[in-house]
């Protein structure tokens, strides 16, 4: 039932607003709203009960194994939330004077320094509010760099065909043409194709490493050399940073600019679709272009640099300074892990993924890149099942829900047919991974014996399989009173 269906005209919740009406005669009638908005009129308990019950309809990290490839769904330490929500942090106005903000600014400055260290970059800005905005920031800096050198010929951004959709979409937002680079059968960038593609028109290349195919790009240094020699810059999409945290620094691989998804690698919550935070790190030559505001430390005082002090900046990305509360959570997480804990993240994420891979291979599932190590994630393809049994990757995904597991990412990357991209993360136990494997084996048996069971799944969720076509064709995007 929708909250609106519980609404009754005249029902109020007085404790949550001023208790009295107040006259507002000084606002002329012409500006006054005449219609009553469709906000629910419910009691506080009705709202609490409604949203508590709704919440129970979700799968989440706190309730389920959630091996959603490329999303790094790992445990979000509760302490990070509690501490980021202390009244002193919550009540600070973003434009409060620096003198009243040193506690908060200290956290931000220290986070900035830590992120520089783990990525091997020369400078970091915390401003971008999500991964995609980090990508925009990075490509905008690349553009500004070339512009500042009057290198106007550079109109193309190279993107491997396995890339996240955000990469080409971002390049276009920065007015670049996108040229796709093919992947070879080992899952690596096709170097010959790359060599053929680069030239004076190349502004840069956007790479994820490990790639979305779940493998580490072994020739990264050669790629860097090819692109750099052509005068282009390298952008690192940090979506998969969890795989190499503390093991390899993007700066050492030759990247000029990088974004990090703190809601992945630094375990801030995904929140049902955000907020994230996408800080960017840059090499020395891109430093002048970092977005504002930027934090500096002078003596023991922290200070926001003014726009005037950053004349070459690509500018502002948000009204204030970005997703401060997300950054606080990442800061706390980083402090909890510490120097000693960073590399364990990638080690155990990798151990879990390779263990899963081995067990699934042994159980007869087909791997997309059987000759490669898994990184923190790997791909299986259901093309045989789809062809021979009529049970596709989506059917497996839906049936997994009945078994109490969130599905892996389906049909991404687009290169691999009928794929499941599986990312267990380091916080899952071996027992839960084993239980997932057992479920996959059980579903495979069902697919072989009673395929309809799988194709009609799920059965035990709040709804059965939903009609996406109807959703898109008969658009119903807002409830209307009868």
């Amino acid at each position, binding site marked *: 039932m929708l909250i609106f269906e519980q609404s009754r005209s005249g029902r109020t919740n007085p404790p*949550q*607003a*001023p208790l*009295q009406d107040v006259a507002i005669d000084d*606002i002329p009638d012409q500006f006054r709203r005449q*219609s*009553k908005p*469709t906000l*629910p009129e419910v009691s506080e308990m009705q*709202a*609490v009960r409604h949203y508590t019950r*709704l*919440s129970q309809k*979700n799968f*989440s*990290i706190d309730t*389920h194994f959630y091996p959603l490839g490329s999303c790094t769904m790992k445990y979000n330490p509760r*302490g990070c939330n509690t501490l*980021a929500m*202390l009244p002193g942090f*919550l009540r*600070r106005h973003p*434009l*409060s004077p620096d003198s009243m903000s*040193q*506690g908060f600014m200290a956290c931000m400055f220290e986070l900035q320094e*830590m992120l520089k*260290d*783990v990525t091997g970059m020369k400078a970091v800005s915390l401003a971008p*509010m999500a991964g995609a905005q980090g990508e925009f920031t990075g490509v905008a800096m690349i*553009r500004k760099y070339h512009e500042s050198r009057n290198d106007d010929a550079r109109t193309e951004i190279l993107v491997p065909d396995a890339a996240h*959709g955000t990469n080409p*979409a971002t390049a276009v937002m920065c*007015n670049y043409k996108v040229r796709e680079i093919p992947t070879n059968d080992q899952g690596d960038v096709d170097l010959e194709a790359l060599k053929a593609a680069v030239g004076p028109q190349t502004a840069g290349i956007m790479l994820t490493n490990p790639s979305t195919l779940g493998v*580490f790009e072994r020739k990264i240094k050669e790629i860097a050399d090819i692109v750099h020699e052509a005068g282009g810059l390298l952008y690192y999409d940090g979506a998969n940073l969890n795989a190499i945290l*503390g093991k*390899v620094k993007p700066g050492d691989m030759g990247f000029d600019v990088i974004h990090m998804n703190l*809601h992945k690698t630094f375990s801030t919550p*995904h*929140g049902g*679709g955000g*907020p994230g935070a996408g800080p960017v790190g840059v090499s020395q030559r891109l430093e002048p272009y970092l977005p504002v505001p930027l934090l500096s430390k002078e003596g023991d005082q922290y200070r926001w640099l003014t726009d005037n002090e950053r004349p070459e900046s690509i500018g*502002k990305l948000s*009204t204030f300074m970005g*997703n401060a509360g997300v950054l606080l959570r990442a800061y706390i997480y980083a402090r*909890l*892990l510490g120097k000693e804990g960073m590399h364990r993240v990638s080690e*155990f994420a*990798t*151990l879990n993924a390779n263990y899963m891979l*081995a067990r699934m291979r042994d159980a007869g599932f087909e791997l997309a890149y059987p000759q490669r190590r898994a990184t923190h994630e790997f791909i299986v393809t259901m093309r045989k099942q789809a062809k021979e049994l009529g049970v596709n990757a989506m059917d497996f995904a839906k049936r997994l829900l009945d078994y109490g597991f969130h599905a892996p990412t389906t049909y991404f990357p687009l290169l691999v047919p009928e794929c499941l991209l599986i990312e267990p993360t*380091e916080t899952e*136990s*071996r027992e839960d991974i084993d239980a997932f494997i057992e479920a996959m084996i059980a579903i495979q048996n069902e697919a072989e014996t009673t395929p309809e069971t799988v194709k009609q799944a799920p059965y035990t969720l709040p*709804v059965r399989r*939903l*009609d*996406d076509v109807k*959703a898109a064709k008969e658009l119903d*995007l807002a409830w209307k009173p009868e």
Partner: protein
Amino acid sequence: MPFIPHTEKDIAEMLKAIGADSIEDLFDEIPANLRSAGLQDVPTSTNEMEVTRVMHERADQDARTLCFLGAGAYEHHIPAAVWELTTRGEFYSAYTPYQAEASQGTLQLLYEYQTMMASLTGMDVSNASLYDGASSLAEAVLMAVRANRKSKAKRILMPRSVHPAYRKVAHTIVHNQGIALEELDYDRSSGIIDPDSLPKDPGDFTALVIPQPNFFGNLEEVDTLTDWAHQHGALVIGVVNPTALALITPPGEWGEIGADIACGEGQPLGAPLASGGPYFGFMCCRQTYVRQMPGRIIGRTEDLDGKEGFALTLQAREQHIRRSKATSNICTNQGLLVTAATIYMALLGPQGLQRVASHSHANTVKLADRLVDKLDGAEKVFDRPVFHEVVVRLKQPVRDVLQGLSEEGIVGGYPLAEEYPELDNCLLLCATETKTEADLDAFVEAVVRIAGRL
């Protein structure tokens, strides 16, 4: 190990299953010369007890302030239930509802959110959020360029009465695509776009941005502006404060046919000030333009048994399907903040939100009146109805006044001169429903006292 459940036995058995001798071996595809030498600037690990103490101390350092600053972020009372529910693990630790059947909680909530926002703005449809107010305006500009097929100009009229940060962000995001943001000045005495100053023949332009209230808190002549833009084939983008919408005419009802796109900052709906984020941007539009909208959209549909359910829809607009032809590169949005906003609106209801708005208005007016009354030489700069911000000019240097206030724990308003040199020694003040009579008096007394010393 912190947050890692593996025992030594697990590790040994898992490596055996893999056929590797050590975890290190699993990284054997990474060229040795790239391997990290270790970390220098990350401190050693702390436990939750120690970090709790650090964070309490730091939060305390910045606490106990009395805030009369708005300028895009507003201190409202947030019902305790909002964040107690929002941070439930099932909302907090879920992701974008790609598997609809396992995400009906989030999906239904987002559908309810879309309903509330569409109704609040008077528009047909809403998306499921963007990053914040400023970036929602940038996206609205890009959307207007896509949507207005009649205009070729890529030319947006952007009043100076729009929040300066919004204008800067819009510039950052759209300028590479050759879109021009052309300034419209405001009238010095009324503090709004003077409708009489609008050019009779403005030429081809894509859209007019209309802030309501504007950055100075003043109410613009939205009906006239909207009709003027529409007469010239341009779209209208309303940038609105959602609390204000409980009180003042929503964009969907501006002029003859209403605005085309409404966007703005969602923070007043249940997000704490929190140093500027996470907040969320909202965006609503006419049904006609829904396929040009950026970001997630949720639709109501049916399951195999004909039962009502909710799912992401119109995904063909988005980057993960459409890639370089997507309406935006946005992927992760501000889902959790929208969760808070939805619960906030449900807890307040139309009457509650209306009271929050009207008390914020009344307190602000009262604050300005008292200040002008008690402080020699202080004056209201504009003769215009406001929502919950107001511009007051002092005789004293406002930087010094603000400095003095900050020493008393008061965040004393926004000094306008930096962005508007013509408004020297002008403060933008805001007093929401959270301020008591005593707070207003304390502010005025402090300003008078400090001004007296200058």
